[in-house]
């Protein structure tokens, strides 16, 4: 029966890990701005984007 104690403490430790992750996320400001990061991730890398832009433009012109 003692195995259940081991399991429970293991599961509690994991859960505490997640709680800590949540607290860290709040502390580091991830809940302050819930919109901008979603837009930011869609910005392409400078160089790549320039090339694709040119491609599209030249295609359009043709």
């Amino acid at each position: 029966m003692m195995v259940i104690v081991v399991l429970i403490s293991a599961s509690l430790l994991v859960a505490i890990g997640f709680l800590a992750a949540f607290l860290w996320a709040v502390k580091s400001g991830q809940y302050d701005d819930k919109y901008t990061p979603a837009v930011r991730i869609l910005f392409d890398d400078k160089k790549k984007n320039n090339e694709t832009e040119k491609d599209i433009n030249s295609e359009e012109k043709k």
Partner: protein
Amino acid sequence: MPEEISHIVDSKLICYHCGEECPDDTYKLNDNVFCCNGCKTVYEMLKSNDLCDYYAYEETPGLKKSEPVRNYSYLDDPELQEKLIDFTDGTITTITFFIPQMHCSSCIWILENLYKFNPGIIESKADFLKKKVSIKYAPDKILLSKVVELLDSIGYEPSLNLEAEEKEVSSDHTKKLYYKIGIAGFCFGNIMLLSFPEYLSIVDQVTDDIKQIFSFLNLLLALPVFFYSSSEYFSSAYKGLKRKFINIDVPIAIGISILFFRSLIEVILQTGVGYFDSLAGLVFFLLIGRLFQNKTYDTLNFERNYKSYFPIAVTITKNSNEKTIPLDKLRVGQRLVIKNNELIPTDSVLIKGTANIDYSFVTGEAAPVERKNGDLIYAGGKQIGGLIELETVKEVSQSYLTELWNDKVFTDKKESRTTSLANMVSKYFTFIVLAIAAATAVYWLLNDPAITFNAVTAILIIACPCALALSTPFTLGNTMRIFGRNKFYVKNAAAVENLANIDTIIFDKTGTITDADKAEIKYEGEDLSDEQKSIIKSLVKNSSHPLSRKIFNFLEAIPDKSITDFMEIPGKGLQAFIDDKLIKLGSEGFINPDAPINPTGITTQVFVSINGRVTGCFKFFNSYRKSLKQVLANISNKYSLSVLSGDNPSEKERLKKIFPDRTEMKFNQSPHDKLNYISTLQSKNKNTLMIGDGLNDAGALAKSDVGISISENVNNFSPACDSILDSNSFDMLPAFISFAKLSKKIIIASFIISFLYNLVGLFFAVQGLLSPLIAAILMPLSSISVVVFTSFTTTAFAKMKGLL
């Protein structure tokens, strides 16, 4: 290829930067057309820094750049800088700007790529919802004034003001609430898990060792809930008791502590497992309710005072040397230089130039007023036209306008005059519960003393009014969301409750019940021929003065005349030659120099003269909001109404026709008069709702039980108030008030539901039969049913009333 582009361009010239239609292709660069030099300059600047991706994320993302880049050198004043920046260590400085122009993903992109313009800028991060950008820069490489200049030059002029950052406090508060909810939720879940053997009555199969371990684990998990997550309820209850006032948090605090200590005793003495699951669940639900109630509008600010609208620096002149100084260093007797479209920050006397002051910012009245040399000009007006020089006669904080903020309405924290429903009920509730507990204690002491402790604590536990405490935040939180969807933004839940209690409504006139953009025009004099109409319309076409625009919209003719020698004399009028005839349009003094000057003329008039002969004049009347009649019809028999106007009584007769007979009307009201009027009503025990718009209503808005500020653009302008109403939603005002009243009824209904649960619980508790299992079922069940009931009914009623 060029032909093809010019073909596209010919059909409609659209500015590549801002998307406005261009009159011609004067401003052209790299096959892109621009509407003005400003837009073209921004494009050039982006191009030279290889940042044309700006145009890739959104089409025509820019905003028309009509104003030239200003001089920001005053920002390098170290004292001023200290107030503006967030942090500096000498080599790196962080500063946050509010950028009202931020509106699309291209804006975010360009604002986060500022470092490409200047190596002195290390990093910049945009927050779209708050319209803020925080910039890290090296002060030894780039001056603050240059950073702001850069922002301005790419079309994102930050709004600079010295108001204390009150928002930061609220964001800290929200963070703490997240921590508390996170911890309470975590403990709640785990305690429930560890209590399962108890729930399923499989205690017999579980060895005592394990049972003991589980209950100690539960105790351990309950500690942070009791000592951290629920701390706010204890401090609030303590504050209430200190002021001899029993608020809703008192019975909650009693319930929580009894739950904790009884469970603690049970676990330590090993007589039971305690009610830790109920405790954690209760705190968790209560905190969720708090989160739900804390609906905030990121970009709206309900606490603004005049400082938000005043510039942070002004130009002064001394021995014909111009110098820019921070506004708070401005003293009496200094010579101010005010340019076109600049705000006059303090009461001053006009020394040089023609003043044409637009007080729309203060009163809502759009037509500018003319002032002559030696006239006193009150703070808050905007100069329209050429440069003027003024001598200050008062300190900024002592001027006619700003003095209002020295009133204690603004210095004291606003406290609701009416007790909230929940607090009122909880007073009686607490006493009744304590009485039942006492009676039970006496009964068991006489009959079976062993049960006394169990029964009394059980009563206090089950009577913990969690459902009572949840009904208000969920109902009002939901109501605020429904209002927000209809562009009625309420500051907090207490304001909704106050709105439900109002019995008197006070309207400001100009800008509140009148439509600022429109005016009713009447022409008096000789009838105008179509030819003459066309002439006048061609003339006013060339002027951007608000009255000219109104005349332009009023006349039905085709403005096809070619004009020569056009002249616009600020504060006076327009003149030009059309078909060799001299056309003059303007004030009486301008048309006929011999006419007596009548600066306090009751109605605004514009005279017309053709070849020296006065043909007549245009008279301007206020145009009332279209929905005003319908709004008044809905509210006039339920509330007593008043109109307070800063204007002269010229509109009195017209107002009398629109408003019901009993309406009290007062004219020529100063900001202080308005404030005092509200105080008088309140001393007669009236619950007042003030609806205003300008800074001159600020005192009345702050003083009244509910202050609603009407705004054409909610992000632009609003004095301190409880709620901001988008002017397009003015017609829904009666619906908002009646819905607030309905919310109050819903709260009462949910109180009844929660009392029924309490009765069931008390039935078990007085007999000493409240098992942890019953508590664990009853308490969450009552909370959930109240939450479901309030959310469902508010949404259903909102749909019925057409608010959703």
